[in-house]
Each structure stands twice: as structure tokens, then as C-alpha cells.
């Protein structure tokens, strides 16, 4: 998933980087096709060039050698709210038909079965980033028809498109999973099947999605990670396998 996500980034773009896989993807892109990618962390590090894989979004390695450190009021007001983030990355415990994301609770808010961490910066990233990439492993539990709680808004809320709700960014344009890539359909706002990984078919994906998944007329093929991508990920970026499993 990290290698697939990395390919979605264009050189010179300004990316709001989350921890974990998104961080791996951004640093991989910076070392392959996008050396001028500007990495911004919500902790306030801009133009970070981490010498080690940051364990948290506030790792000291994000500060040392970065081009600017600013307070979080500047990050959220003058950088994110001002529309300067071109790409946002989010994961989520649940992702639904319209790309709404839940990282707050499983079950009811008042008596949750599982209490998750909550929004952090996710709600505002989903609202303001010019385009949003969701990264999440495919499973029936993670892809319900409707999330239990909307932490970060997707393409529609109760049938109303996001632009009508006043959201500046384009919202989730792609969902990158471990088996396929889904894309937002321009007309309906639904996440539809757009491309398959090697040795995965249509039915493998449908089995793990909780709604009747539509598909693009012509499906793309996701290229497997190249030897360079694999080497960089395993040997340089995450040699201790903090985020890469298997």
C-alpha cells in the first residue's frame, strides 16, 4: 500500500503527512519520483527531512534540518484552512460508501463498544486538503455501508454533496487498500472500484465491502512495487518493520 500511495504524489506538491503508512509513502515518493515534495506535519514541522523513521508525528527528527517550525495555530489556520495543502492522507477504522471516515467510536457515542482516539487533525484535513487519499486495509468491518460516527467527512452527508455544505477541498478522491483502489464517482460521490492489484479479482474485493460496490467500466491494474521501491521501504525507510508487516 505504501508504494501504491507514493505514486499518487506529484513532484513539488505540498502534503500533509500523517504517521505510519502515509509517512512511509511520502518519504518513498521523496526518494523516487518526487524529490521536491514538501512534507508538512500537523505538529508544525515544514519541509521535514527525517533522518530516521518518525515513530510519532511529533518526532524530534522531523524538526532537525527542516526548513521551518511553527506553532499549531499557524499550521491549522494559515496553512490548512488557507487552502495551501494539496494532498491530505487519512486512515480510519471505518470508511463508508461515500468516503466518510470514522476514527471516534464503534457503537454509540455515549456507550461505545470501542472508544477510538478521535479526530486529531483528521476532520479539518478531510474538509480542507485540496484532495484526500484514504489508506486502509480492506475488510467487511472496516468498509461498512455507513460508518457509526462521521469523524472526517467524505463526498456526501445524508445525501448532500460536500460542496453544498461549504467544504473547500475535493474530499476523498481515492481509497488505497491492500487489494484494490477505489475512486470517488464524480456524479454520485460513491466510492467505486477503479483498479485491482495483481492476482485479485472483482469478487475478492466485493466480499470485503459492506455495500453494493459499483465499478468503473474499465478497471486499471495496480503495478506491483518495483525492486527499488521494495528496497527503499525495507532497507532504508523502515528497516525495523515498524509499519511494514509481512
Amino acid at each position, binding site marked *: 500500500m505504501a508504494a501504491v500511495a507514493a505514486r499518487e504524489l506529484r513532484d513539488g506538491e505540498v502534503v500533509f503527512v500523517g504517521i505510519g503508512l502515509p509517512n512511509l509513502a511520502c518519504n518513498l515518493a521523496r526518494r523516487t519520483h518526487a524529490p521536491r515534495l514538501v512534507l508538512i506535519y500537523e505538529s508544525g514541522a515544514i519541509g521535514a527531512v527525517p533522518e530516521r523513521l518518525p515513530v510519532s508525528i511529533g518526532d524530534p527528527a522531523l524538526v*532537525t534540518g527542516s526548513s521551518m*517550525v511553527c*506553532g499549531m495555530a499557524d499550521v491549522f489556520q494559515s496553512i490548512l484552512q488557507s487552502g495551501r495543502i494539496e494532498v491530505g492522507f487519512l486512515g480510519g477504522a471505518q470508511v463508508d460508501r461515500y468516503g466518510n471516515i470514522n476514527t*471516534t467510536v464503534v457503537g454509540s457515542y455515549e*456507550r461505545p463498544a470501542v*472508544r477510538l482516539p478521535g*479526530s486529531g487533525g483528521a*476532520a*479539518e484535513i478531510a474538509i480542507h486538503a485540496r484532495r484526500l487519499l484514504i489508506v486502509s486495509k480492506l475488510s467487511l468491518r472496516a468498509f461498512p455501508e455507513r460508518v457509526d460516527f462521521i469523524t472526517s467527512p467524505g463526498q456526501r452527508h445524508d445525501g448532500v454533496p460536500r460542496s453544498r455544505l461549504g467544504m473547500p477541498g475535493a474530499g476523498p478522491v481515492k481509497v488505497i487498500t491492500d487489494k484494490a483502489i477505489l475512486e470517488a464517482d464524480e456524479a454520485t460521490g460513491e466510492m467505486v472500484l477503479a483498479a485491482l492489484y495483481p492476482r485479485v479479482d472483482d469478487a475478492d474485493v466485493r466480499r470485503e465491502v459492506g455495500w453494493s460496490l459499483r465499478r468503473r467500466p474499465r478497471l486499471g491494474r495496480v503495478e506491483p512495487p518495483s525492486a527499488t521501491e521494495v528496497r527503499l521501504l525495507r532497507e532504508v525507510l523502515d528497516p525495523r518493520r515498524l509499519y511494514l508487516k509481512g
Partner: protein
Amino acid sequence: MRDAVARFVHDGDTVVIEGFTHLICFAAGHEIIRQGRRNLTLARLTPDLIYDQMIAAGCARKLTFSWAGNPGVGSLHAFRRAVEGKGAAPLEIEEYSHFGMVARFSAGAARLPFWPLRNYMGTDLPRVNPRIRTVTCPYTGEQLATVPALNPEVTIVHAQRADAEGNTQIWGLLGVQKEAAFASQRVIVVVEELVDQSVIRSDPNRTVIPGMIVHGVVVEPWGAHPSYVQGYYDRDNDFYLAWEPISRDPDKLARYLDEFIYAVPDRAAYVRKQPGLAARLRAGERFSSGVNYGF
């Protein structure tokens, strides 16, 4: 630290120990636990291990926050048990996103009753938090979200250095240290080093909190461990990993509190109990060069 907590932190207060990953003052949290404060409203963006410990120790009546997890590791289990109804005591929560919490501190610092932000449309947060409201722009007519000011009774800020008057310098991640301090009725600054005012005055642009708003200065080396202080010591990521099984098991958690908080009198004793800290975490050297303030 003992005197500062005794004097400035009272039962029932809203208490903020800020710091975004960087500069989280565990020394202050531990002292508050030792002194047995009760019914606190704890507020910070990321409760982190420090509030998980304070919740487990029974200090908190309420938690105001925006992201409650152990970054890169997992859950804060004392927090989860309380919220999932499996804890010893109930815990009221008031929940925002990071931007919302930052805006609450900004409003508090400016002594405005609210802060406007373009946010929350399409999310369920305003449904479960009625303090997230809206205001109509007097120029464009559009609706914007608002959050109310947060003005805690006491804020505790960890920093690299300060002078005796409390003029405080921070570098590395700044989080909302400045806004939280300005928003607060009382401010305690905890520093790695107390320096002569000539050090502060040789680089006034580095000062983040002016002495005029500071009520107490405490010198407490290693006071942020297992959090970190840029230029002094690294984050103890192993301890953050170790917290997962400790906090998952209420008995283990109680034993941790006994051994590392109740059984030690102060921070110096806490550091002596862990003799490898300096060797393992002491920061390397990456000095910046000076700039000319002459005229």
C-alpha cells in the same frame, strides 16, 4: 515542584499540561498524582500517557481533548476503560478536533469568548458536542463554526530554559504552549535549565512566554521524560511501547503508579531509579549558529 503544585493546583481546577509530543511535563503530572488532587478537568489536545496516568490515579472528573491514543502504539487504556464504562469511576468527556482545541486556546489567550473557524460541516462532532456552534459572517453572510474560549485555572508548560523572572525560551515543536500559557489564569513554567537573564536577552526572538504572565518557575532536569526535549534528550519510545501492556492491565498500572510515582519523593529520585536514561536518550549535538542583534 512540590511547592508549585501545592500552591497553584487546587482540587476542581481545570488543569492544562500542554506540549505536542515534545515538552510534556510528566514531572508535574506525577506530583499532582502524589499530592492526590481530585475532580480536575484535564484539558490538552492529546491526553497521552500523562493523562492516562492521572485518570488511572483518580485525579480527573472530566477530560477535554482532540486525540486520545498512544501515538504509533495503540490505546490509552485507563481512558478507554473510563469512557467504555469499565473503569472505577465515570469520566465526563468534551471532544473537539485538533483545530478546535487550538482555536479554543487562541480565543482564551486573546480573552475573546469564541473563535471562528471553517470546520465541522459534514461531521458528527457538533451533534455530540453542543459547545461547537456557528456564527454568521457580517460581511459575506456565510455560516462559520465556532468554539468557546478555554481559560484554564492553571497551565503547566515544560521548556528548554527560562530566567528567574520566567521569560521562557522554546525551540523545536511549539505546539500550543504559547496560547495555553496566555489563556491561563496561573502559569507554571518547568525548565531543564535556569539561565541568567543575559542568555534570554541575547536572543529575545527565541522567547515564547514572557515572565509577566508566569507565576512560578521550577527547574526540573529530565522533567519531560518519557516525552522529550529537543537538544536535551530524545523521546523514550521504548517506554511508550511498554505502556501498552501496563495500561491494558489495571493491576499492572496500579503497580506502576506505586513504584514510579507514589514511592518516589520527586523527579530526581525518579531519574535515579532508571540509571540508563542519560546513556540511552541524551541528545546529540546539532548547534545552530548565532545571529546579529546589533544596530
